[in-house]
């Protein structure tokens, strides 16, 4: 290329004349518009806006023009380049959108393909139901008490007014540690936790105790040598059976829904006096006749046997060091396994202890 030339004749520098610049611009714009994909546009960019494009070459000639012509030509070429670049950018944006849209279409998958890469985990429904029950009481300000499964005979029986010759002692067929002179048993109920609580805390006491218990029952659809109970204990001034009833009604409603309450029937437990059996209003038929007749949950009774309860026998308070003149208390106990069985229609108790993964996974992660 030649340098600035004072004798330069503008008429002879054709690339810079208006007509020519317009032609280059139009040609470029047409090519841009004609580019159908990003690859084509890239070529168009090189051809019409790159370093070797006609307009870039024309631009270099501007310096060779006489000063008075430079301004005009500069303006003309600058405007043309501006339009071309704008068109390129716009087309680039359009084509990118198109390309992405096309890509999205091409990447469509079958979302119904199964995803079972990892095994499904689950907690045991006995665990989650126990927690749910505990939470009902914790929400009322109670605390959760615990105790050992292998328990001292004294705590499992004697302290609970089940003396060595108490007939009720044979009602609960007990696993004894060998030798029996060690006076250790597998706890037959969660009640020793009551005694432990009274011996280690000062009243007022409001505790709930879900836990595992053992009896020498043969293993079948409705019996298991290991099962679960939830026990409640309150020791406070002025506590009566009415508070027991109120607590159990609240418990029933919390676990089984509004309007589900309880009823008492006289019964006998050595550790409570008066004692009662608790029936739960059937949460399926709600004890309303005549629908009750074919209710499978309560077998037409309208009520479901739920557990035992009563006013803590003052003899128990004495053995556990609670001032029975000042304090009264109540206690109740229900089977968690049984509750799970009728609440969720578990037909065979063994399903709970055989560990078939299909059982627990059916219950989700919380009850």
């Amino acid at each position, binding site marked *: 290329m030649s340098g600035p030339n004072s004798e330069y004749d503008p008429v002879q520098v054709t690339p810079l004349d208006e007509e020519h610049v317009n032609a280059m611009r139009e040609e470029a714009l047409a090519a841009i518009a004609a580019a159908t994909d990003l690859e084509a546009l890239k070529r168009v960019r090189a051809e019409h806006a790159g370093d070797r494009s006609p307009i870039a070459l024309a631009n270099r000639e501007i310096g060779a023009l006489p000063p008075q012509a430079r301004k005009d030509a500069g303006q003309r070429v600058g405007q043309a380049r501006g339009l071309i670049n704008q068109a390129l950018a716009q087309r680039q944006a359009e084509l990118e959108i198109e390309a992405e849209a096309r890509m999205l279409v091409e990447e469509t998958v079958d979302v119904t393909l199964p995803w079972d890469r990892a095994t499904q985990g*689950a907690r*045991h429904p*006995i665990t989650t139901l126990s927690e749910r029950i505990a939470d009902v009481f914790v929400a009322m300000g109670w605390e959760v008490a615990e105790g050992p499964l292998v328990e001292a005979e004294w705590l499992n029986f004697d302290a609970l007014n089940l003396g060595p010759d108490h007939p009720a002692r044979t009602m609960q067929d007990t696993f004894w540690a060998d030798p029996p002179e060690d006076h250790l048993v597998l706890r037959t109920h969660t009640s020793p936790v009551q005694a432990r609580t009274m011996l280690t805390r000062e009243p007022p006491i*409001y505790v709930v105790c879900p836990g595992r218990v053992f009896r020498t029952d043969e293993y079948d659809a409705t019996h298991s040598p290991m099962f679960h109970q939830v026990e409640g204990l309150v020791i406070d001034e002025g506590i009566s059976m009415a508070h027991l009833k109120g607590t159990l009604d609240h418990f029933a409603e919390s676990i089984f829904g509004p309007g589900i309450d309880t009823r008492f029937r006289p019964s006998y437990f050595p550790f409570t006096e008066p004692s009662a059996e608790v029936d739960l209003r059937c949460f399926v038929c709600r004890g309303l006749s005549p629908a009750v007749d074919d209710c499978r949950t309560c077998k037409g009774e309208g009520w479901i046997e739920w557990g035992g309860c009563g006013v803590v026998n003052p003899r128990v308070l004495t053995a556990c060091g609670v001032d029975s003149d000042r304090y009264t208390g109540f206690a109740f106990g229900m089977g968690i396994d049984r509750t799970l069985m009728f609440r969720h229609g578990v037909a065979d108790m063994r399903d709970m202890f055989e*560990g078939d993964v299909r059982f627990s996974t059916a219950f989700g992660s919380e009850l």
Partner: protein
Amino acid sequence: MKAPVSWIREYADLPVDVSTEDLAARLTALGLKLEALERPGHDITGPLVIGRVLTMEPEPQKNGKTINWCTVDVGDANGTGEPQGIVCGAHNFAVGDLVVVVLPGGVLPGNFEISARKTYGHLSAGMICSTKELGLGEDHAGILVLPADAGEPGDDVFDLLDLRDEVIEFEINPDRAYALSLRGVAREAALAYDVAFHDPAERKTPAPNDEGHPVVVDDPEGCPVFVARTVSGFDPTAPTPDWMARRLLLSGQRSISLAVDVTNYVMLELGRPIHGYDADKLSGPIRVRRAAEGERLTTLDGTDRALSTEDLVVTDDSGIIGLGGVMGGEKTEMSETTTRVLIEAAHWDAASMFRTGRRHRLTSEAGKRNERGVDPTICEAAADRVAELLAEHGGGTVDPGVTVVGQAPTPRTITIPIDLPARVTGMNIASDTTITNLRAVGCEVDPAADTLTATVPMWRPDLHDPFDLVEEVARIVGYEDVPSVLPSAPSGRGLTPAQAMRRRVGRTLAGEGYVEVLSFPFVGEADFDRLGLEAGDTRRTALRLANPLSTEEPLMTTTLLPGLLRTVARNVSRGAADLALFEASPVTFPHPGEAAPILPVDRRPTDDEWTALNRALPDQPLHLAFSLSGDRDRAGWWGNGRPAGWSDVIETARRVAATLGLELTVRSASVAPWHPGRCAELLVGETSVGHAGELHPTVCRAFGVPARTSVAELDLETLLQRAETTPTAPAFSTYPVAKEDVALVVAEDLPAEALAATLREGAGPLCESVRLFDVYTGAQTGEGRKSLAFALRFRAPDRTLTEKETATARAAAVALAEQRHGAQQRS
């Protein structure tokens, strides 16, 4: 306890229109729980009438049988007054006998409809009934022949035979032993309807005298009252009257012989067990004492028993003749030749009865009553009643001798604040109601200003304490009246951190794909063998049960692995392949030789007693075990699966620890039941908290679980104790990170964790993390060596690091690794 309603009505003036359902419901509300309702005879419909046999023609048949073609006068019951022709296969009746005839249209038990039908060449219009066909007995084979004075032909027999009755079966709680008798049930029934009660035990008995059989009681504490009466000239072949057999049957007892039936009948009637001796087999006076060391007795059931010095025995000059109150002996047993019966009605110490029954594993109707407590004041009445019935139905005479040794204890009195029932039950119970209700259950009540003193009736040995009276008052007021009042507890502290974190651990594992299982804790030595535990392994020291369900599994487990592995095997046998299971349960480590004391119950244990008791208990730490079998990541359309292995269970263990705010240290270990080269010991600080890794192949085979099953068992108790519940917030730099990779060749047995620790130490405080990303063994590393590649990240808290600073730190890390482990840098 089965109580025929007709029998209850004999002693309680119940309104006629009271339904059995209502009676059962009210008694249940009073504490005698309805177990079942039976309606014997309600499946029979008439016409069922008395018939007189007019003619009876035996007709031998081709099949060898002989049938009787009878005509029977059934009065107007057949509508014509003509004799009814009936074919009958039985032969134990004669012309002129009164029998029971069911006419066509009638229905017998088992929905057996009777119609006139042609049989053996006759039109047989009805049936002559047997005891069994009427549901009146079990084993009477022949036709029921009625007494000659039973009635006239055509009379309806439903009432005559008490064919229809209703029987309520109660579940009697141990405290209500008095309800193990019709006397007790009827008393409650009368109470339920507030009607008159006629006490069958109230009878005039002859005064004691010296003419009766001599009786000496050496142990008046064990046997406070002993009454003996004798009936002579008794006919041992005399049948039990039908009504008595019927009542026994309805009450669930088989008729055996008149003498036995009468004693059982009176036991049901009054609740007082009676023993009958063949008086001719007795020699010399009857004595009651405790057995001596080494004495034996063959009881009625034919069992030869070694006696304990605590057992109460009845003796005569020949030696021991009975286990007092529990079971008689063979020597003096009544038999089909007994003509003189000595009736024993004795009151026995309930606790002794319980212990003897349990010691000899003897349960009987008599024992059940004696060990729960019987009214001690009715021995004379019961003996008199038995004598009367034996004489009446067995044709004997009651001897004038009446032996009574000892006397019933004086009644107990209990004083209570008069408002105690109201306070304890929360019900609105007026003083008057309390007094009325206590009187209704038989107490004599002596009210004072704010208290009352109740003298407890002798049939209620269960009433001891003030609260016992509260229950009596409350059950009559009715438990349905207990108001529902929610007590307000003082504000609590919620779950303890350990309780909350235990839930968190379970959720973490479920989130990691593990399913929770609950196994029985019972194992046997064989399980420890299967695990490959060595002889001295502490896990072999297990608590033994004296009475295990299975002799194969007499131990309380010390490890959760046997239960978990059995569950794995069970799932696999049911077709599952990729299994992730976990269990969180306590295990038991006993303190052999430590016995738990039996403490007094009349006071709080002392601190020393309480400590001693708890010291004897086994350690029962909460353990956590989990297992992986099959694939951890399953194969699928996305590609190959990844089998679960030793590293997965270690990773899970780390995640569990992380849930608790803890970081585990992993060390290589060699412990059963793991693969000796693929077992990690897991530590928190320097405290070992468990092991994880792949199972030993022998163990997999022994438990029948898939090869390469990996398991971990952690001491969750310790983890929970060590858990970080209030972690400090981290301070972290927001300046740019500088990354450097280092590949080092080291000896093959150098644990990666050791090299990582060295790099961390050498790189100094600017090093943010060291992460192993590749392990390579091959020709380039040389024999016995491996290459470990780490990504190091550097960052300063206060500035952007220069390249030089990073390079220096990296070089220092490599230098320390070279110096400490002979590591060579790979380029």
